[in-house]
């Protein structure tokens, strides 16, 4: 009987592995579960606020106490998530950060489906999603009770809807993104650029008209309704908008001295970081494996764009839509920016990295016995190993750098 069991079990396991291997979503399901597990492991890491968390948690407490919120610079959708997290799990790190972790996890799935829709080579969407899931800035932002992760999740949902020719839903999602944080509006620029340059349906103007109209209608309506709900009184939307822009434009480099601030061009030309906490370690920094290849990626994306490649066009539309307006705005207004403003842009880089890595693997598969083929394989393995290692060292999951890094004293 035992012998029988031994014979059967390996066969069953083998069959299961084969089945999983054949299942097209096995990889992304694994990444989603891994991301969720990593987030839930560290959610209770610190009971102190991480950077701007203090603003949003304090506002949630005020709203729960029936008082008007004090921080009105940002719209309320992201704050509603934090507020409801606290209502659900209590006023503790679980309550503050639960929905951020869930949003970060949803983002991984959304990103995978965006890549799939770009009709990349088989394996490329998984590669890109792998790089995305194990990237430090993305992980840190989705581990904290800040608004950026909600904004990016809605933005990606908007991109996905537009890629699936659902302009109405895309407009709603991008409006949702802008209602988490106003920079979410930049998602609309990406959609517009994509529509303008995408290889197919170039003359189909109805989709962009529906998108633009739905975006403005949903944004205006939800802005008014949600702000009124949040403040407990009907608000005048134009007055509210004026107030918000006044507050947002007040933070300039000439008016304040911000040690942590960084200008948009620095995000590409220098390694930039912001320490939210040393122990446990929360460092808002783009993984060095992404930062180091940013310029070549942009050049390669331009090359792909010039050849009419969908991946290149979408990636460049994403980059241009979310990065260039920030760059121009900073040049014009001198507004203070921080490294986590770069978070919505990063998806454009992950896509090209996934694309290049899958190209390298295919090259190796086709030229296994040549030096070039072997070099391609070594480069891929080296890059992915370095990416995982930097994630382990930088992310809140690793041992804090300040505990073991030699400093000469």
């Amino acid at each position, binding site marked *: 009987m035992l012998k029988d069991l031994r014979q059967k079990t390996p066969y069953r396991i083998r069959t299961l592995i084969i089945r999983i291997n054949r299942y097209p979503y096995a990889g992304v399901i694994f990444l989603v579960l891994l991301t969720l597990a990593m987030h839930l492991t560290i959610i209770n890491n610190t009971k102190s606020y991480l950077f701007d968390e*203090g603003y949003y948690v304090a506002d949630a407490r005020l709203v729960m106490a029936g008082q008007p919120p*004090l921080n009105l610079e940002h719209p309320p959708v992201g704050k509603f998530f934090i507020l409801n997290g606290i209502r659900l799990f209590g006023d503790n790190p679980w309550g503050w950060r639960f929905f951020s972790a869930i949003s970060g996890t949803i983002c991984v799935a959304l990103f995978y489906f965006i890549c799939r829709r770009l009709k990349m080579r088989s394996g490329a969407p998984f590669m890109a999603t792998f790089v995305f899931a194990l990237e430090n800035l993305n992980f840190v932002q989705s581990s904290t009770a800040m608004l950026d992760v909600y904004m990016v999740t809605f933005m990606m949902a908007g991109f996905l809807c537009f890629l699936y020719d659902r302009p109405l839903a895309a407009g709603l999602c991008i409006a949702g993104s802008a209602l988490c944080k106003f920079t979410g509006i930049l998602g609309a620029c990406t959609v517009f650029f994509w529509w303008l340059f995408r290889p197919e349906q170039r003359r189909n103007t109805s989709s962009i008209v529906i998108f633009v109209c739905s975006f403005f209608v949903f944004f205006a309506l939800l802005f008014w309704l949600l702000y009124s709900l949040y403040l407990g009184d009907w608000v005048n939307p134009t007055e509210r908008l004026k107030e918000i822009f006044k507050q947002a434009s007040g933070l300039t480099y000439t008016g304040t001295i911000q*040690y942590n601030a960084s200008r948009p061009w620095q995000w590409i030309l220098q390694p*930039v*970081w912001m320490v939210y906490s040393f122990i446990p370690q929360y460092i808002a920094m783009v993984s060095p494996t992404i930062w180091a290849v940013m*310029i070549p990626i942009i050049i390669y994306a331009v090359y792909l764009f010039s050849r009419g490649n969908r991946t290149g066009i979408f990636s460049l539309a994403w980059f241009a839509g979310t990065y260039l307006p920030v760059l121009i705005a900073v040049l014009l207004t001198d507004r203070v920016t921080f490294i986590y403003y770069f978070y919505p842009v990063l998806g454009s880089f992950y896509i090209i990295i996934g694309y290049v890595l899958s190209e390298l693997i295919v090259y190796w598969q086709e030229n296994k016995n040549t030096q070039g083929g072997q070099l391609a394989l070594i480069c891929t393995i080296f890059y992915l190993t370095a990416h995982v290692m930097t994630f382990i060292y930088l992310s809140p999951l690793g041992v804090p750098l*300040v505990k073991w890094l030699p400093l000469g004293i």
Partner: protein
Amino acid sequence: MKKKTCLFILPIILLIFITISIRSVSSRLLADLHLGRGTYLEANNLYENALQQYSLAIQLIPDFQQGYTARASLHIKLGNYAEAIRECDALLSINSLNPNGHILKAVCYLNLGKYEEAIYESNLANSVVNIYDIPYSVRGAAFFETQRFSEAVRETSMAIILNPNEPTNYFVRGASYYNEGLPEKALADLNKAIELNPANARSYYYRGLTYISLNSPDLAYADLTTFLKMDPSPEWRIKAQQFLLSLTR
């Protein structure tokens, strides 16, 4: 041939670019690492070493605001309020809008018994950022010490909303309620203060007095005895003993 040359040259250019970029931020990187190491040492009660690390960070970047903030906080922890105020002044000379400078200075003044200065600095901190609980706490405590109890209740109520886990706020509000003749409200707050921090002797003292107001002499006796066991200052000891004496009579 051209392709091969490109394959060699491009990684070299990339490496040079990466090296230059990292070198351009090396002093900031080191300063942050020293600050982080200092935080780690401070968490392990190695205060002298922590101070040394913070100073090294400031040496690397003379206008390193976080370094001054860390040094000021550590001085407050060690009870060196004059030193802490000096650090705050240095910090505020770099950036007069740094709320931490005003908050820490307010805390120092409160501990030094300079209540008006503490209120002034808290107001300055609030004019920059109005979402932190500490300025409200400091003002509440300063108003309480200067016997302005209704104002103390107002400020600590706000501080409690912004940070419901700080026992001092419940103590100050509870004691203020007691002084305002609201013993039921005082009892609720003092119970919470003791639940969050059973080591604060004055919470037992005021709860004892509140029990006297509520005609619960046994509970009052127990609290005042606990207060005396916790070895307060002679001035407070005499007050508590007088109340105990009145209870036994």
